[in-house]
């Protein structure tokens, strides 16, 4: 098991955000967590990256326990995190943002090669290389955020609502990007989405998070035929 979250509970000043959540990500797979606004999805990713300290539970990555480690150490272990709201460095150029993503990489030639690969995958980033990240459009920013996370050569990539605020065309593009990263770059992915249809269509396994608890978990095909999921998450009339 690449990532194993065991019975994780996270509180914000008394309020419970996650309750006894257990999630697993197998090497090479795309796992998605769907859930409504406020379900605790972002909190889960933040806890994995060490940005929130759990009250109880454990997080294991590649056989090491990582809860309690510093965020930068977790990043260096191979967890890339594309955070909610993208969180680019707005006054730095596109190229500088990409280079910051490679901060843990020591090999200069490797970094250059990585930038080259990312430009090939996202040609728009090459066009905008010298532009400040804050001036990019929403879709471009999301590509830069994913590109920056890939610059660290992650083993596992955490994506927090990459399709949020994007046009249907861009959402489809994000879907293709997720597939590419998983299949061609062999990066395992934990994808968080409110766009449940898109998320379930790319994932190998899915969890449904409701008010901080795992309500359902199954293969996407089964989740998509589940009455509760169809009604609450896919907007279907039963």
């Amino acid at each position: 098991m690449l990532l194993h979250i065991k019975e994780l509970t996270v509180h914000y000043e008394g309020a419970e955000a996650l309750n006894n959540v257990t999630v697993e990500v197998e090497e090479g797979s795309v796992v998605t967590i769907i859930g409504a606004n406020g379900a605790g999805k972002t909190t889960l990713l933040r806890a994995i990256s060490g940005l929130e300290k759990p009250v109880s539970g454990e997080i294991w990555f590649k056989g090491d326990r990582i809860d309690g480690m510093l965020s930068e150490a977790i990043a260096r272990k191979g967890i890339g995190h594309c955070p909610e709201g993208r969180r680019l460095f707005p006054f730095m150029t596109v190229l500088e943002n990409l280079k910051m993503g490679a901060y843990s990489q020591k090999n200069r030639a490797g970094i250059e090669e990585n930038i080259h690969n990312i430009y090939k995958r996202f040609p728009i980033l090459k066009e905008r290389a010298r532009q400040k990240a804050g001036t990019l459009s929403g879709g471009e920013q999301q590509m830069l955020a994913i590109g920056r996370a890939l610059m660290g050569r992650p083993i596992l990539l955490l994506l927090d609502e990459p399709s949020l605020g994007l046009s249907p065309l861009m959402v489809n593009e994000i879907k293709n990007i997720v597939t590419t990263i998983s299949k061609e770059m062999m990066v395992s992915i934990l994808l968080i989405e409110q766009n449940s249809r898109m998320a379930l269509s790319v994932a190998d396994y899915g969890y449904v998070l409701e008010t901080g608890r795992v309500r359902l978990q199954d293969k996407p095909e089964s989740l998509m035929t589940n009455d509760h999921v169809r009604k609450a998450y896919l907007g279907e009339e039963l």
Partner: protein
Amino acid sequence: MNAQDILAMVINGLSSGLTLMLVALGLTLVFGILHIINLAHGELYMLGAYCVWWLSELMGFNYWFAIVLAMILIAFLGVLMERYLFRRFRAIMVPSLVVSIGLMLFLQSSILLGTGMGDKEIEPVFHGQVTFLGTSLSLGRVIIGAVATVLVIAVILFLKYARPGQAIRAVAQDAEASSLQGISMNSVSRLTMIIGSALAAAAGGLLGPVFHLDYMMGFPVLLKALLAIVLGGMGSVVGGVILGSLVIGLVHSFATTLIGPEIAEIILFLIIAFILLIRPSGFFGMELRT
């Protein structure tokens, strides 16, 4: 008053603005990274001057070598301050202010107890005047301005192009996102304190031969540096500080010559209060980090 007098005031103003920039740049970098207003920052300037005095006047080292050594020693002090005080109080406003005031008083009284009240002077290395466009200028002032310029440019280039410098900018823009890239908050804080302390020490060493040393000399400089930062727009990592420092240097120089040194400081504060009334967020207010 003729053109020569004005030129002399401008050059003097630029020279003192540039040394002020050394102090203000460090103060704003530390604020941008640690979110602490280090009120003891002026004492790093004061200690820099005392260190150069000690090394050059008492130990007999060459003046420039003494400045470099003082920068290293004060940078080491900055590292200790970051490691044992500021790191715990990162972004906690009131306690960090109390800690830095305490540190300020501690450093002042240590110097007072350690060296006594008597007059201390650093022998100027450069004497005489240079003539520029028909204006006679103090050679010492010109050289101080030139060295400060070189240091400021070096820091700007470091922040722009060096990887650790870029990490400082990244943390100032988004500390959490930086940690997700594997950037160590603690190393960036330490590096920022090293740069800030060394620059303040350099300013103290450069201006040492111009003034008498005094254990209280850091405080007025701290105030001016804070003004320069506020004027430039608190938080814009470099941008505003440069302009803010130059404005303050120039205003101070003009007020000193035209009205007299006693009221120059009051005039300075009044003019800056007036500028801030018109532009409450400073010149570069729109580039605030968040």
